[in-house]
């Protein structure tokens, strides 16, 4: 009683940084069953570690069949987008302490794309939509011998949308995409934006026509899910709005 503060400090010094967290993972393996099920895993882990670290701990120590994609483990390769506690995030950019490890942490595959096994989805429709918006610089006339010139201001105009890592966190958080897989989805529009607003590009009109399609930008209902989901902090909804405005004014 005399030195409660000191006692507390001592207790903290010797306390293990580890906690026991429950990961509730949506499992699916059509080689075993057509039904997806939830499975709980208890993991001893430092809460300052990433959700990806916990998934690895499960795979490496408890159940080798747990399947997910990952590569760089620090948020630049875009492999490990998943739904964590109901929100789309990169597992390698989400620290356990930030998602309330007191309660079971749910982890499931991103929505709107066919689940192939556990947290792995079929990315092909996502990349098809990306390819459909002509995601490459189109120029006319003779090429200069040196670089094309571009002012820092013109370069800055599309900087935000160059950050996209094609992780599909935005597209698979979009209610319109969930209901209708034909919608291009935010990521494809973001990548169209990156070229439409690049002063060097000369195919803006063509891309706008593609996005003027029935399944194009007009399907966006401005719910901001995509902006919330983007692990790169891209203002996705704003980019979509700018494309809509360019379609009306034909100025970009």
């Amino acid at each position, binding site marked *: 009683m005399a030195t409660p503060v000191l006692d507390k400090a001592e207790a903290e010094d010797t306390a293990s940084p580890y906690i026991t967290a429950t990961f509730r993972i949506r499992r699916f*393996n*059509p*080689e*075993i069953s057509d039904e997806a099920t939830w499975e709980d895993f208890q993991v001893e882990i430092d809460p300052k570690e990433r959700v990806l670290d916990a998934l690895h701990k499960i*795979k*490496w*120590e408890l*159940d*080798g*069949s747990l*399947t*997910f*994609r*990952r*590569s*760089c*483990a*620090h*948020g*630049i*390769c*875009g*492999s490990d987008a998943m739904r964590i506690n109901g929100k789309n995030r990169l597992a390698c*950019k989400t*620290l356990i302490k930030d998602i309330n490890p007191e309660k079971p942490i749910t982890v499931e595959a991103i929505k709107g794309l066919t689940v*192939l*096994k*556990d947290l*792995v989805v079929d*990315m092909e429709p996502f*990349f098809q939509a990306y*390819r459909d918006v002509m*995601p*490459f*610089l189109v*120029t006319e006339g003779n*090429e200069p011998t*040196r*670089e*094309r*010139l*571009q*002012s*820092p201001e013109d*370069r800055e105009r*599309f*900087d935000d949308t*160059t*950050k*996209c*890592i*094609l992780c599909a966190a935005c597209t698979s958080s979009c209610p319109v995409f969930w209901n209708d897989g034909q919608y291009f989805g935010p990521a494809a529009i973001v990548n169209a934006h990156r*070229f439409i607003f*690049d002063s*060097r*590009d000369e195919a803006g009109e063509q891309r706008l026509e593609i996005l003027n399609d029935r399944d194009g930008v007009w399907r966006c209902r401005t719910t901001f899910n995509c902006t919330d989901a983007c692990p790169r*902090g891209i203002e996705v909804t704003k980019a979509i709005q700018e494309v809509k405005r360019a379609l009306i004014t034909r100025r970009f």
Partner: protein
Amino acid sequence: MKIHKYDTVIVGAGGAGMRAAIEATKRSRTAVLTKLYPTRSHTGAAQGGMAAALANVEEDNWEWHTFDTIKGGDYLVDQDAAEILAKEAIDAVLDLEKMGLPFGRTENGTIDQRRFGGHSRNHGEAPVRRACYSGDRTGHMILQTLYQNCIKEGVEFFNEFYVLDQLIVEVNGVKRSAGVVAYELATGEIHVFQAKAVIYASGGTGKFFKVTSNAHTLTGDGQAACYRRGLPLEDMEFFQFHPTGIWRMGILLTEGARGEGGILRNKDGERFMEKYAPVMKDLASRDVVSRAIYTEIREGRGCGPEGDHVFLDLTHLPPEQLDAKLPDITEFARTYLGIEPYTDPIPIQPTAHYAMGGIPTNVEGEVLSDNTTVVPGLYAAGEVACVSVHGANRLGTNSLLDINVFGRRSGIAAAEYSAKADFVELPENPAELVEEQVERLRNSTGTERVAELRKELQETMDANVMVFRTEQTIKTAVEKIGELRARYKNVSVQDKGKRFNTDLLEAIELGNLLDLAEVMAVSALARKESRGGHYREDFPNRDDVNFMRHTMAYREVTGEGEDAKDSIRLDYKPVVQTRYQPMERKY
């Protein structure tokens, strides 16, 4: 088993693979096999820049760049190759710009350039602004731009196909490439790709270290496939430790941070690099800076309760500059360390970053089966290869350059070769080795676990063959790796399925890492000198009399079947010297 036929097959879809694919697809029927989706490749993690003497912001020329590359590589660089690298750098950058890469710009609208470690004006007088960049995500923009141009050119990708074997057939006494064998992740099916030309562009091997900037997937699959088929690996003892990895995690914080004015400080706040490199200071070459950091730590001037790191200090730089030039790495510090770089220094330690060694090639990207003989139809480019443009230590920004220059060269050379060559007949049962390997692992009831062996491997590599090495530490590593390789025979996987069996593939990747770690350690043991990234405390000086030569490591097999034993035979290859005589290296 499925059999496919292509003129040119490219293994890997990072920067080198996709740069090669853009050229090869224009000239030949080409397939790109990649174990990841192309945009997941680790080229995307490169941050700071790509070197080219554009002279957009100050006087510069490619000869100075050549010299810096050779000096940076501690004179183990093949000088003819370095000259090509520096000379073709200018067009490589301009080509990327024309493909759409959004480089940072000067007020005049030209490509902006920044300082980087080891790049100097007039042979070492002062730092020079040579690195072309796009914020601190230059690699990301290169990867995206190349992928975009692959889409434009209609490049054919086989995503999530793991190449596990290189088919070599002897025709009239000449070793030739017949194709590759791949494992399809989605289905577990094995595919044989018969090809006139094969280009390896499958990246590095960094995952045999624990603290590394490398992705989980960088497991040296290409090097291992070629090595197991009797091809040599060159200079594997030379591995780069990047000075500024996030403490304990190893996540890369670009050298561009120091290029923008960031300073390394010890626990006393001292700018210690002034002692080690009076001219270039914090921008000395990476091997020099990493050794300086560990010297500070060993001499008790490290930071934190355990004195096991130093600080990267950016607090004196204006927040606007950090936001504009270093947005990603400052966000890494916030996300992973909870540190605000505007106001607090970032704890860092050297992190295993880049393999200077690899599959030996000439300047056309053709793979060598000994010091001089080319394997017709086999090419390599990028980190998997050793040209050698990086020698004993690579300069920052020269790898994004390497993948573009030699990716392009090998793409053109391979496609031109396949236009005139015939297919080499496949061996009987071409998939035999892979089928046997996969089945053995899937059916094994062994008690060893992949994750445990990998952890022990990474721990021994970090402890024994990192920045400082001695005969004793390397021998400890060699012994441990030998033990792990023996235990690996008793490894099993839990997932017995065919669909997306990443458990199985991690086991195969571990086998690759173990083989390559052994080559690295054995090569390091024999090099009784210190040069670039290879520092021997028991031989602290460079020894040009005995060791101005490349290491060539070969796998030798004696006995057959169950009794087969493999060992490593070391040979050496001369260094190509043109106009630069070796000098003492000072920064």
